[in-house]
């Protein structure tokens, strides 16, 4: 049965360009511009998909981008919307959600046991016995979900684009087009957005046969095309409205973030289906779907139709059918519409039954007959199409998201916007305006007002053009003793399911939604929520306004994750030594925004390369680029005061030229940063921060300077200064060849800072011990840093110097038991838990977080301890974040772990309950595979506990911990 009509005046298909594709293995022919559903329908294929739960045969419903039962599977794309996606030559589609095939779907057996699957079944049935749950889960997962994702997909990212306009108009139907022109005439920039490939909206599909409007139509369209200040964004939907008139506009080419000064919402209304027995049979569809099918694709919805209507729109659809030579067997008017329409229908030979009640639709695989009753007398009519025109619900997502209040109008039996936020306007059918000429006027005034508003001009009072009669049936629900009246076509929710949910106490709209899953399918209730609200209101004896509606959150429509992600775009920072790292093929890792060498591949494997770097530092000398450290300079009258207030240690008693570990906590006493502070002069400090927190620490310090009203200047010199750490027993021998500075223990002791020339360049040198060897951190202007680095490498050649990366440094510092903030600490760790009580100087009158630390000091429950693994099994290596278990309870977690070559053991740090922290206490670490391995608590530092190596030839008198770098 061919259903293609003769050419239609506004059709979207290109008859000169026929094409062929396959559906379920069968060849289908259509034209360029066809969508899969229209091409299939034109060939008489009315079963386009299977329903979600009962696998019932389904056809078209809305033909408005929300036909969830006509989703198609392409090889590379799941859930292609058959009602809107133009089909391409040679495409191969199958139905989604079938077991076997569309024609013979084993899943439909579910329907036979349907009465044992009451509403809320999943929530209630699978709780006990508990051991069966995994079986149920597997079954449900197999049954649930739509479409198959191609897991060998290729990543394709679409950039997010930004766009600015004065007035954004959502929807290019009659009122939207009028609004665009009215706004543009004020000289402002207008963006006109429509989800369809062409503008026109209902003016085209509802009024295609209205001769009197054809001139207006072409004038509107040509005006829009000719006005340079109107940009049409077609094939795009507004996925979300955000503050200050930001619209997320989704297009095939990615997301546009559209910033407007004012917004006109002309999104119109969704036609709502009638609820009656077998209202889901293929062939039963919304009247507007039939009109779209005919006017856009020149495809007849059926050969012989019955129209169920509660408004003039149904009559108009009947006349459109008639005009196309199709048989309209009857118009079933649920009430009595305007006699003019009845007269017109009868003149065209269409019988009209007023005050008719629909009883049921029937047919085996598709609609074959409609049963209705008039005055209590049932009648049956054979037909292959039933067009439903019983009412409308607002396509109100952008309005709701902007904060618009809606109220139910009993005149229109429709929800209407009643209080609009500033700069947001509505027009057209969403405003209840149903007369086409009034829609133009409503659009004009909204467009004008939006333009005037954004120009800061006074806006005129808006006229109310809303219709004075109902265009929706107040309760288009007709129960049948045998059921199968579908309310939600996505989720197969029937009238009885909602009734059951309400009876079980889920009688609030949000509760009913979640329990019954109404409106939770892919169309998000666009064709079910309004009827759901009507049913709930009726059964609970409330009004529609009292019943309320669910929240319409973004995204308005399923939006590809790749569009939301956009292109990866973030800054990448390179250190001054990057050219060197690249020249030796360093393996890079990301550290905040920075690229840092993770290791330098010198050996066959990553592990061997890192081990060689560690060995070089321990055995002779190594050089690491630490330019990524945050570097702040603090100077001014109150510099000392600021340093004392920011850090937990006392800084005011630092001698000039001294360095000190600097630990920062927040108001709650949690460790947020550490570094090394040096004192250049009385009123001048230089302090480092961790790589990742340089920006946030600087920001916070600036804020504190303002809060505390201090006379001090803080400069962020992170990018201006390059830094490197020369470490190892031979480091002094190398450095001495490049500087005149006295490097003897007396001349440059441990933890002291010196300023001198290194390789001819002004440098700040700090003797540090982060990695546990004699070492010098050298800070120079970033322009000179590479030169100094190269010189150190050149001189170091005689000592087999090795550059070392982040991984080697992590191992070296772990052997010393030095923490890394953010790895060994978390968002709750205080200095006592980090096992650094020595870093908190309570005698200071004030510092950040002091009251919190004073309290926390006496309430310690966990502590960072060192441990060594007792198991020698190389296949039982714990990972960071593995848990420690005692008596079946979790007592802590591993924060750092590594195999120490120097010690010949696996060592690590763990944050554990203080009850288990005694030295030599046995611990049990649970591996990722569930096995437990034994470890024991050991004191830190693991390596060189007395710090002899970082202070060679010096007597050990200072037990203060080494400085971190």
């Amino acid at each position, binding site marked *: 049965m061919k259903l293609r009509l003769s050419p239609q005046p506004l059709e979207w298909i290109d008859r000169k360009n026929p094409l062929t594709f396959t559906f379920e293995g069968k060849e289908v022919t259509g034209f360029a511009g066809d969508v899969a559903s229209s091409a299939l329908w034109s060939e008489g294929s009315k079963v386009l998909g299977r329903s979600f739960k009962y696998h019932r045969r389904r056809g078209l419903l809305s033909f408005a981008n929300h036909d969830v039962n006509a989703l198609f599977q392409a090889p590379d794309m799941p859930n292609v919307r058959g009602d809107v996606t133009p089909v391409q030559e040679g495409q191969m589609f199958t139905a989604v959600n079938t077991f076997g095939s569309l024609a013979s779907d084993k899943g439909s057996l579910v329907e036979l046991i349907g009465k044992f699957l009451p509403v809320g079944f999943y929530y209630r049935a699978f709780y006990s016995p508990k051991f069966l749950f995994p079986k149920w889960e597997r079954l449900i997962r197999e049954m649930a979900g739509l479409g198959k994702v191609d897991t060998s997909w290729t990543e394709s990212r679409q950039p997010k684009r930004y766009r600015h306009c004065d007035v954004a108009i959502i929807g290019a139907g009659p009122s939207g087009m009028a609004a665009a022109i009215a706004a543009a005439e004020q000289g402002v920039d207008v963006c006109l957005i429509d989800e369809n490939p062409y503008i026109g909206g209902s003016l085209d599909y509802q009024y295609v046969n209205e001769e009197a409007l054809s001139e207006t139509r072409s004038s509107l369209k040509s005006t829009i095309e000719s006005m340079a200040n109107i940009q049409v964004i077609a094939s795009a939907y507004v996925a979300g409205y*955000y*503050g*200050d008139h*930001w619209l997320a506009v989704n297009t095939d080419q990615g997301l546009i*973030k559209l*910033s407007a000064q004012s917004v006109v919402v002309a999104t119109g209304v969704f036609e709502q289906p009638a609820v009656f027995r077998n209202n889901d049979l293929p062939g039963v569809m919304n009247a507007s779907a039939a009109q779209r099918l005919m006017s856009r694709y020149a495809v007849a919805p059926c050969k012989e139709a019955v129209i169920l209507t509660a408004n003039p729109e149904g009559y108009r659809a009947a006349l459109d059918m008639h005009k196309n030579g199709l048989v309209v067997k009857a118009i079933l008017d649920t009430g009595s519409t305007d006699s003019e329409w009845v007269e017109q229908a009868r003149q065209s030979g269409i019988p009209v039954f007023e005050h008719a009640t629909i009883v049921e639709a029937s047919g085996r695989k598709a609609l074959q007959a409609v049963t209705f009753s008039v005055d209590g007398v049932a009648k049956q009519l054979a037909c292959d199409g039933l067009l439903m025109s019983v009412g409308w619900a607002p396509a109100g997502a952008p309005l709701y998201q902007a904060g618009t209040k809606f109220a139910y109008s009993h005149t229109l039996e429709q929800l209407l916007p009643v209080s609009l936020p500033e700069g947001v306007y509505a027009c057209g059918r969403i405003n209840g305006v149903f007369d086409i000429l009034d829609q133009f006027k409503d659009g004009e005034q909204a467009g004008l007002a939006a333009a005037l508003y954004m120009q800061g001009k006074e806006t005129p009072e808006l006229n109310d053009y809303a219709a004075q009669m109902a265009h929706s049936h107040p309760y288009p629900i007709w129960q049948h003793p045998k059921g199968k009246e579908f309310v939600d076509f996505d989720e197969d929710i029937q009238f009885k399911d909602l009734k059951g949910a309400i009876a079980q106490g889920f009688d609030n709209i949000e509760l009913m939604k979640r329990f019954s899953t109404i409106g939770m399918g892919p169309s998000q209730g666009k064709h079910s929520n309004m009827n759901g609200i009507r049913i709930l209101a009726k059964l609970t004896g409330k009004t529609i306004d009292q019943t309320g509606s669910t929240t319409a959150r973004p995204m308005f429509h399923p939006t590809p994750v790749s569009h939301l992600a956009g292109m990866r775009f973030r800054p990448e920072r390179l250190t001054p030594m990057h050219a060197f790292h690249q020249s030796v093929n360093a393996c890079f890792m990301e550290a905040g925004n920075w690229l840092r060498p993770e290791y330098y591949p010198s050996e066959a494997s990553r592990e061997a390369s890192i081990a060689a770097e560690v060995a070089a530092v321990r055995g002779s000398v190594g050089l690491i680029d630490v330019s990524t450290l945050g570097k702040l300079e603090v100077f001014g009258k109150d510099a000392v005061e600021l340093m004392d207030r920011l850090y937990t240690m006392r800084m005011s008693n630092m001698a000039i030229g001294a360095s000190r570990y600097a630990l920062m906590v927040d*108001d*709650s006493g949690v460790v947020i940063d550490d570094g090394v502070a040096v004192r250049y002069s009385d009123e001048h400090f230089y302090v480092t921060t961790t790589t990742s927190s340089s920006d946030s620490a600087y*920001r916070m310090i*600036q*804020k504190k*300077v*303002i*809060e*505390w*009203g*201090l006379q001090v200047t803080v400069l*962020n010199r992170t990018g201006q200064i390059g830094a490197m750490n020369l470490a190892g027993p031979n480091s002094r021998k190398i450095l001495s060849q490049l500087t005149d500075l006295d490097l003897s223990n007396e001349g440059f002791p441990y933890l002291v800072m010196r300023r001198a020339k290194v390789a001819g360049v002004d440098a700040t040198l700090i003797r540090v011990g982060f990695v546990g060897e004699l070492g010098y951190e050298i800070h120079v202007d970033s322009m000179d840093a590479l030169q100094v680095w190269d010189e150190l490498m050149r001189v170091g050649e005689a000592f087999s110097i090795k550059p070392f990366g982040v991984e080697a440094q992590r191992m070296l510092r772990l052997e010393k038991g030095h923490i890394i903030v953010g790895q060994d600490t978390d968002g709750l760790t205080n200095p006592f838990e980090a096992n650094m009580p020595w870093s908190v100087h309570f005698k200071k*009158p*004030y510092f950040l977080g*002091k*009251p*919190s630390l004073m*309290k926390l000091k006496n309430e310690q429950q966990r502590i960072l301890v060192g441990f060594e693994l007792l198991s020698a099994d190389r296949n039982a290596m714990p990972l960071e974040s593995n848990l420690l278990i005692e008596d079946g309870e979790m007592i802590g977690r591993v924060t750092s772990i590594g195999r120490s070559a120097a010690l010949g053991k696996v060592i690590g740090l763990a944050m554990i309950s203080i009850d288990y922290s005694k030295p030599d206490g046995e611990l049990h670490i649970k591996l990722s595979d569930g096995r437990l391995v034994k470890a024991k608590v050991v004191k830190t530092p693991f390596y060189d506990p007395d710090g002899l190596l970082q202070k060679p030839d010096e007597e050990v008198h200072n037990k203060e911990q080494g400085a971190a770098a």
Partner: protein
Amino acid sequence: MKFVTCPSLGRRALSEFNYGGRLEREPDQETVSEKEWADYVFYHNGAPKTQIEWWYHRPTGIWFLFERNTLTDRITKVDFANKGISNEA
């Protein structure tokens, strides 16, 4: 996304700013009771109101104070944050 009209920078996207918490006077550490301190650090009243907030403009590195209504999300005043501001809060 929102826009902020700044006294010296003009109309800027809010995404250029970092939120820095509401303006609040830190209790005197010497005399504060545990409860007062806990209230300051942890217990924030989230009831809708107009409050002064810290906002940091990243491109220029300047701290601003916005007067913002947390219910309507409308920013009614934008000022530079001046030194010693917490004493006036």
